[in-house]
């Protein structure tokens, strides 16, 4: 027979409060939105364009920046170098600074006067008010999630497997692509999904770089400011449903690939 414990009861109660704290506002918002309103909102071109823009910019940011973030994660997991702790701290910076401040910092970095802005102008690309700017803002605030998760994944790959591959005649790049990367894949997929999800939900940094074209969080903010809660709520519900559907699909696909 299991022994009764008061402390467990207290923990369950406190845990339940936290779950309620997360679920109640979301559930309340969903319940207050009728399926008909949701359907009508989904038919609005502005909403559909905004959701599509949010998805593809976040996806593009995740994929483009992962090309450099994953090797960096490997270095952080495997190598020791001077000021490694400082580098680790720098990677976490976007998580701890206010995202509106991050937006201001990025604005200076990608504006027409900056080197990057001038380089963009040479190929006809203006980051301000452009999806490219949104990609940069989303990637800036969400990249620590990928780097940290992938780093943990690489750190979890037994080093002796890499050593064994070296003794079997593999070059460092082959060891990385055939041993380290596949074995850290579960964490890398998690990191990619986290980065993508975090990018989709970004508001503060994006609104400063690109109010237009409008990503969904900015659209929700605008509708709330201009028309009130009633008009902002259906877009929010629709965005949450799509985000959750994408999140679950990616998780499932990632898991399926790992099992295979």
């Amino acid at each position, binding site marked *: 027979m299991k022994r009764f414990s008061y402390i467990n009861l207290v923990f369950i109660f406190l845990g339940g409060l936290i779950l309620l704290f997360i679920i109640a506002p979301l559930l309340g918002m969903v319940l207050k939105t009728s399926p008909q309103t949701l359907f009508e909102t989904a038919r609005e071109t502005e909403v559909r364009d905004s959701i599509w823009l949010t998805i593809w910019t976040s996806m593009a940011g995740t994929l483009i920046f992962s090309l450099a973030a994953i090797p960096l994660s490997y270095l952080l997991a495997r190598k020791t170098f001077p000021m490694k702790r400082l580098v680790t701290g720098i990677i976490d910076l976007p998580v701890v600074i206010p995202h509106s401040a991050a937006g201001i910092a990025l604005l200076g970095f990608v504006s027409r006067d900056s080197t990057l802005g001038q380089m963009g102008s040479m190929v006809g690309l203006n980051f301000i008010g452009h999806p490219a700017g949104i990609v940069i803002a989303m990637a800036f605030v969400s990249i620590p999630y990928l780097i940290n998760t992938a780093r943990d994944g690489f750190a979890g790959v*037994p080093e*002796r*497997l890499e*050593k*064994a*591959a*070296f*003794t*079997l*005649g*593999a*070059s460092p790049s*082959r060891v990385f692509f*055939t*041993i380290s990367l*596949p*074995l850290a894949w579960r964490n890398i997929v998690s990191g990619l999904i986290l980065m993508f999800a975090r990018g989709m939900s970004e508001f503060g940094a994006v609104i400063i770089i690109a109010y237009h074209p409008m990503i969904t969080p900015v659209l929700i903010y605008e509708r709330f400011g201009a028309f009130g809660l009633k008009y902002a709520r259906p877009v929010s519900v629709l965005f949450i449903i799509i985000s959750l559907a994408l999140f679950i699909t990616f998780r499932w696909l990632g898991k399926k690939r790992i099992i295979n």
Partner: protein
Amino acid sequence: MLSLNNISKRYRNFALTGISFDVHDGDYFILLGESGAGKSMVLETIAGLVTPDSGIIQLDGKDISNEKIQNRRIGLVFQDHAIFPHMTVRENIHFALHDSDQPCSERMALVESISGRLNIFEQLDRRPLTLSGGELQRVALARTLIQKPRILLLDEPLNSLDTRLKSELRVLLRQIHREGQTILHVTHDYEEAISLGTQVAVINNGEIIQKGPPGEVFHSPKSEFVARFVGIRNFFPATLFRKNGFVIANIGNNLYFRVVTNEPETEGFVLIRGEDILLSSGPIESSATNNFEGRVLEIVPSINGMEITLDIGTPLHALITPESIASLHIEEGIRLWVHVKATAIRFIPS
């Protein structure tokens, strides 16, 4: 031939110091030492996974100290096999052939041939997670041998196997050696060294303390560490002198043993095997010239019988059968007589 010349490497609080030995073609070389003695570090240094601070590693006369790992032609089988868990057995073995110039069909034929030789053909399409310890060990060997390494390095290959599998794998290792493979095998088990090795080096605390053929190392240990390591419990520092035509070894504590040796008067070690000690409940007439009375301190079962520790002024360990324990009514605390023939005592000059 593989030669290590004065290899030193410091890693945190541990250091390999002046490691030198040669592994000749056709040798089955055993590097014997306790856990933490530096055995695996020596192997990883030879394989190129660890860079030595000083010293030279030569293979067939060529300095390979700074050679890339993948160009060394040295195969290493790790203690825990290090089989890639995300690949099948076939993919694991084929991994070593990936960069070879042979056509794919030839490579696949080689994989099947070596898996047949090592009796893992049926497991080729299985994942490592579904294999037993013995099968994993064979996969690790197949994966390494398929590269045709000049030297095969084995890190405690029999360590995690049960007695039956150990015996099977010993047969396999002997067969691989007979087929001409030069092997350097590290272990903490001196019985493995006796059963497999043609040459032995004993390593302790990062230093080679004795090397030579197994018979020489195990019969004439040059230090207390080696003696104790190979299971000789009665090993005493001694001073040899001659008196009235007899050769006497003084081991301290007013204890003197008659010994038979041609060594001059010198410092050295006295070595007595437990099985060469005769016990009796009282003084007896015998050919033994070393007779002492002592108290039984401890009776401990061992693989070869019962080990009796007696206090004769210093602890002495005798090995007898359980039947003798019963017939002599031996129990802790009683007094017994100890008899050792002078010819059963070995004196090794230091």
